[in-house]
Each structure stands twice: as C-alpha cells, then as structure tokens.
C-alpha cells in the first residue's frame, strides 16, 4: 500500500517535472529517440538478414554443394550449382525424406480467358515436387503438382492477386511464354526472409517466386536460366543441358533424422569417387552439406555494410546517452533545492533514487514510443538508399519490444550519473 502510494506520488512528481522543463525534456527525449531509432532500424535490417527463416527444421534441411567439374582447373570450393545428372543422382537417393532440385527462370504470364493482352513478368522456380513440402510452402487453394513433368503449375499469392484478384484460380490456365499450363495450386502469402532456398547471387532478400513449374517441363520448354550457371560445354538451350556439363541446378534435401547426414555424405562421396574412377573428373572428393543457417552464413547474407552501420549506430547512441545525461545533469542541478528540501523533511536517499528512476522510466517510455516511430521512418529512408533491402526493412513485434527496452535502458543509463550526483548533495548546503 505504502509502496503503491509512493509510486503514484513519484509518477505525479515526474509528470510535474516534465511540465516544468518542457523544452529540456523534449530535447532529452528527442536525443535519445534518434539514437534508439537509428539503432533499431539497423537492428531490424540485421534481424531480417540474420534470422532463421524456417526454424522448425532448419537443421534438417541441407544444401548440397559438389565438386564434379570435369576440367583440370576446378573452382576453389565445391560448386553450389550442379549438373542435371548429379542433381538427379541426389534425387534418386532414398536417404532424404524429401529432395528439391530446381533452377530459377522467368516467363511472361497471361490468363488465357482474359480479354487483355497484358502479360505479367513472373519469376519462375522450375522444381521437383519435393520443394513444396521441404520449404513448407503454404497452400491457399489446391495442391502441389506431384510429378516433375506435366503442364501444371502452382502460383504465388501475388500473381494470383494480379491476374485473378485473389480468387481461387485452381483449374485456370495461364499462357506462359506461349505455352498453356494449368494451375493446380495457389499459395497463401508466403514470406521467406531470407530466401534460404536461393540466397546466392544477391537474391537473399527477394520475394518468393510467382510461378512454380515442374522441373522437366521447364527444361523441355527451354525456359532460360535466370541465375548463375557454369558450363564447360556449348549448348543452345536449357532443353539440351541434361547430358552436358552445364551446372545450374540447386539441390536441397530434408532429412527426417540429422544422424542420416553422414550416410548422405557417404552417398555423395561414393558417387563422386565413381565419377572420378570413370574419368568423369580429376578432382579430389569434396562435397559439402550445409544446413539452412550454415548456408546463409556461407552465402554472406548479412550485409557487412549494414553490420558496420549498426556498430556506428551503437556508438551514436552512446553519444546520445552522454548528451542526454549532461542535459539531465543540468536539470537535476537546477532541482538541487527541491532535493535538499525533500531530504530535510524526511525523504531518504533511496526515496530520491526511486523518484529519479521513476522519472527515467517514464522518460524511457516516451522515448520508446517516439523511437519506434523514428525507427520506422529511418527504415523507409534506408530503403531509399538500399532498394534491395525493401523486402527486409520490416519492424517485427520483437523489434518494437526491443526498441522500447532499449529506450528504457538508455533513459535509465542517462540518469544514473545525475542521480548519483544528486544523492551526494549536502542537505544543509542546498537549503541555504
């Protein structure tokens, strides 16, 4: 009861103190809010870059890199892109629970029933059916295609919005670069941040694809490769790549038990050894399996510039805290008489400390609210300078909580030295 009454009194005193020195507290709040806001905006970017996009099974999803380059001048590290026959060898294995082999492409899409001739530039993932289960793609309507060959597709939420206004388009037919393919599934809004299944070539912050097409169909139709590829053979189109040394497919596997990783590694190594023994390549056996988070690190998804800027914003926040602290020191200095008087009539150092801390916490709450608004604003500005970050410049609820927490901590940190000084005032001297 007594504590509650003192707490409400301290809150009342804090509000009176804010009213008494409005300009000064406005400056303090603004100073801290800018510091916290800038840091929060950066942390939001780092959080989006460094977070686990599929935490429930990221440890069991493995990306396969292999070293089967047929030339004597191999790349330094195993390649993250594979030949068709290497990728198919992985797909044949019964060790993984699921396998996804895919490449990125692009087509122009149009509803054949539409009177408009407008075509939508669409990102395509030409993939084996295992992709959907492996990546936990959420379906709004229909299902995935179940074979790697067939004139069927799954489309993403955005494309469905653009062409069919978000309605159930299962059964509708799209014209894709002159070919007619039927929609068998429509995805819900699907955000994968970072885009773990294709973080290379600067795609880590891309949106999920518009169209998912069966791999063999895409190859047969000659849909071009819209990602990195390497080749030691000449070829005229993708449809010729199955038997050539053209490296463009990526492979992911999902293990139901991570203990099977060594079995998979042996399977890959044996396959590479057999190739080598048959004269397929002259290289050391060097195959790599990375889980999702390892692969994101390998792909250097976290932008070093953003990290450097985050460090700079921590230093900037420190400067803001020093500034706020010096402003608070002047405020507390001006209130020396009141501190002395309160001490004389019976307030203990602890009381005065609690009064100061209550003021700091309230200051932190106000700062937090403004800091969160500013961090949203700073994120928008960041995207103006770094457009590729547009899809990750998101303030998640946990960042809002962090922003409030940071504001509280900085407000309290700013008040610590002034409070320490205020508690060392000699009562009798302040009352003269």
């Amino acid at each position, binding site marked *: *009861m007594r504590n509650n009454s003192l707490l409400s009194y301290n809150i009342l005193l804090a509000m009176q103190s804010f009213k008494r020195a409005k300009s000064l507290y406005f400056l303090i709040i603004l100073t801290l809010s800018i510091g916290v806001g800038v840091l929060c905006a950066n942390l939001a970017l780092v959080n989006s870059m460094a977070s686990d996009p599929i935490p429930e099974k990221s440890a069991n999803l493995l990306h396969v890199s292999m070293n089967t380059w047929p030339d004597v001048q191999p790349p330094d590290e195993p390649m993250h892109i594979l030949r068709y026959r290497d990728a198919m060898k992985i797909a044949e294995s019964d060790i993984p629970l699921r396998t996804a082999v895919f490449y990125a492409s692009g087509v122009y899409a149009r509803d054949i029933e539409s009177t408009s001739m407008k075509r939508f530039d669409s990102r395509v993932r030409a993939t084996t059916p295992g992709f959907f289960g492996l990546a936990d793609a959420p379906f709004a309507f229909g299902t995935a295609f179940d074979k790697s060959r067939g004139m069927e597709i799954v489309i993403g939420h955005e494309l469905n919005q653009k062409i069919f206004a978000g309605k159930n388009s299962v059964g509708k037919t799209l014209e894709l670069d002159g070919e007619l393919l039927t929609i068998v599934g429509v995805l819900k809004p699907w955000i994968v941040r970072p885009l773990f299944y294709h973080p290379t070539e600067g795609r880590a912050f891309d949106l999920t694809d518009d169209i998912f097409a069966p791999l063999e169909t895409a190859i047969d139709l000659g849909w071009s490769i819209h990602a990195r590829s390497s080749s030691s053979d000449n070829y005229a189109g993708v449809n010729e790549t199955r038997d050539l040394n053209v490296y463009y497919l990526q492979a992911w596997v999902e293990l139901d038990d991570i203990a099977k990783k060594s079995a998979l590694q042996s399977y890959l190594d044996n396959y590479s050894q057999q190739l080598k023994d048959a004269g397929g390549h002259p290289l050391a056996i060097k195959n790599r399996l990375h889980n999702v988070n390892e692969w994101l690190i390998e792909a250097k998804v976290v932008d070093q510039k953003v990290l450097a800027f985050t460090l700079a914003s921590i230093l900037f926040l420190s400067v803001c805290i020093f500034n706020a602290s010096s402003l608070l020191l002047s405020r507390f200095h001006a209130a020396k008489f009141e501190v002395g008087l309160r001490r004389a*009539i*019976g307030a203990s150092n602890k009381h005065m400390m609690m009064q100061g801390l209550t003021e700091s916490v309230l200051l932190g709450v106000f700062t937090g609210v403004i800091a969160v608004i500013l961090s949203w604003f700073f994120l928008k500005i960041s995207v103006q300078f770094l457009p590729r970050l547009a899809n990750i410049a998101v303030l998640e609820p946990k960042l809002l909580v962090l922003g409030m927490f940071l504001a509280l901590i900085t407000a309290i940190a700013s008040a610590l030295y002034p409070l320490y000084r205020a508690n060392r005032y000699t009562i009798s001297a302040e009352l003269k």
Partner: protein
Amino acid sequence: MLKMNNISRIYQSDTIQTHALRDFSLNVGAGEFVAVTGPSGSGKSTFLNVAGLLDNFDKGQYELDGVSVQGLNDSELSRLRNEKIGFIFQNYNLIPDYSIFDNVDMPLRYRGFSSSERKRRVEQALEKVGLASRMKYLPSQLSGGQQQRVAIARALAGEPKILLADEPTGNLDSLMARQVMEILHDLNKEGATIIMVTHDPDQAREVNRNVQIIDGQLADFKIYAPLDRESQSSNQSIASVVSKEVHKEEVDA
C-alpha cells in the same frame, strides 16, 4: 528531548580546518522553547543542522527523543527527521509550483499515510495557522508572513516531537513577524518543543530559555532575561492584532 554531549563539527578544506562546533553540549527538555543566539559565524546554523540531522558531526553523542543517532544509516536518519522533527526555514523553502496543500502534504507522503489521513492532517495544520481557506493557492499568491505560516503548517503536519526554526522571522516585516511568533508561542503552550535560532534579542527575550553560541561553544551565561509574556501589555495587543489579521484574511478568502 534533545541531548548533545561534547559534539564537535569540523569543516576541513585543503588548507584550513574550521571548528564549527567544539565540545558543544546542550540538553533541551520536552515543552521548552529555546532561543539560540550568537554572532554570525558562531556555529548557530551548524548546531541547527546537526540537531536536525541535516549534517553529520565528528565527535560526541547526540540523543533525540531517546534515540541515539550515532551509527544510524541514511534511511533511519531520514525516518527520524520525518517523524520527530519539523523544520521552519528563514526562506520558507516552499516549492513555488505546488499548491499550499501539496507543500504541506510533502512530508506526509514519505510517512505512508493514507490519502484521507494526509488530507485530515494537512487541513488541521493549515487550520492551526489560519490558512485553511487558501489550500489551493500557490505560494506566490501569499504574503511573506503567510508563506512562513504555510512552512509552519508543513512542519506541524507530521506532528513532530520538536520544531527547529532557523530565523523564522528573518525575512518578515514586524507585523508578520509577530504573527509567526504568536503561532510559535501558541504551539509551545500546547506542548511543542521548539528550538529557534534568532538574531532578534526581543524575540529571544520572549522565550523561556535562551542560549548563546560563541565560537562553536555554548556560552555559559544568559544574555537575555526571559520576559513574562503574560504581563506584557504590548504583547497582548500584538496578539490581538494577529488574531484580527488572521480573522480578516479568513473573511477575505
């Protein structure tokens, strides 16, 4: 009520050591009204600060209402100040942004009283000094004398064992000074123990005991003979002037 034995207070700067109080001993019994006089720099304020637990002392023993203050921590000293001592300062020391009510309420906030109890005590204290009708006023809306009466009400609200007044009329004109002195005398009559530092020999003469501090020590003689207040016709008339003044203010309010 207040027992000081061989108290010393030494202020030390880089090069100079100043003995503000030197083997200072004083006993004040319950219900006494003691005037403390002495030249400037003699140690009167230091005595009042030590007595009011606003300042430490270096040597000696000090007992306040049966409680030895040596070795008490800050919280214990603060509680003693809050519960047993009421301060009246020369400059009133009211917080200008707070209403009269809030100023008087301040010490009670640290006592843990319920809001109804605080209200009762504040109203009673302001009633006692004739300012019950001005609770919502700000200090700047009151005269100097009225402000000092608010300060007295603040000191009284916690029902302390002893009132320490540091030249309470020092900033007031003679009429207002009389009002304040009358209130202090009334309180003393009701049993309050009061120690008042003053420069005014007339005020010192009015009280039942006065002591002098010279060079940080208690002088072992009395300079002023106490007046018999009841026999002073001038005082009678001043008292009636004060009553009239307070009554007039209440009517005005």
